[in-house]
């Protein structure tokens, strides 16, 4: 599924001291590399569109965040530009040697699927 504009949602993180960091903030764009994962307690996707909901997940210390934009581009198409297929949000943890995941697959129209593995939108 295609959607425009490219970045309908942007990420937001909340730290254990209440401070926040957003991908787009005060006209500046932040990279997720800037996020202090040791202080992270909540993260999600938010939009400037008041008609769109926000999506958040709380994290425990043993959970690693999962946060991706799934994007696509058409080959063999003139002037092809990348588009957003959807958004992934969740956590991963290794417990007693086993890999556990819980991932929300969020379509641009707001439909959500919760899964324990990678699935297609």
């Amino acid at each position: 599924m295609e959607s425009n504009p490219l970045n309908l949602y942007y990420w937001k993180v909340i730290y254990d001291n209440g401070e926040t960091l957003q991908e787009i903030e005060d006209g500046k764009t932040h990279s997720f590399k800037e996020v202090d994962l040791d202080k992270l307690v909540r993260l999600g996707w938010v939009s400037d569109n008041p008609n769109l909901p926000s999506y958040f997940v709380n994290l425990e210390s043993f959970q690693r965040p999962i946060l991706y934009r799934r994007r696509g581009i058409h080959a063999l198409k003139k002037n092809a530009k990348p588009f957003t297929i959807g958004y992934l949000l969740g956590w991963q943890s290794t417990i007693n040697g086993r890999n556990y995941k819980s991932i929300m697959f969020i379509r641009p129209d707001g439909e959500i699927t919760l899964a324990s593995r990678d699935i297609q939108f």
Partner: protein
Amino acid sequence: MAATVVVEEGNGAGPAWTDISTSIGGHLCSADNNNPGTSYPIKIPSSGTNYSYWKSHRLAFSGTFTSIENIKIYTDGSLGWGTGVTVKFGDTDTAISPPVGLTNAQYIQATGTEGETGDEMVANHTNINSSGDLFSYTSGSPLLVDDSTYTSAGDSKHIVIQEDVADTASSGQKTAETITWQWDEVA
């Protein structure tokens, strides 16, 4: 901020990688050419099968991003080019075993008889040992090309694709098909 991503085709012995997103590029044809226009059609054989010169395509990414991974490709599941025509992809393994992307070191220039047919990729590409139908992979079940994680500007592994044209095919330029690359990106 999102990465800048384009689709590139490799041509020549080097190879030279060209952004085919900015032109109607990537035409399957009977030459090692990323933008042949209407030149170099694949001749329909009187018997047997002719081929396009195989194509080597990859993603190239730049700009600001944290990571790119889980690179896949898919089609709409229906090749509308009539009977006797298939579009295949190659795999280094003797049976299809994703990820199917090849490294830069595994790139081989396409060969054939220009203006007539390419050489079949399994028999002639040193690093291709099996092939599969690209149009059997759809958005619901895409083909994994590259399972690497990229954290800086660069390019993905490349997929090798080729068109088979049997003697039952019909002549004429065909309507462009949609082939989609997909990846997961952390901004």
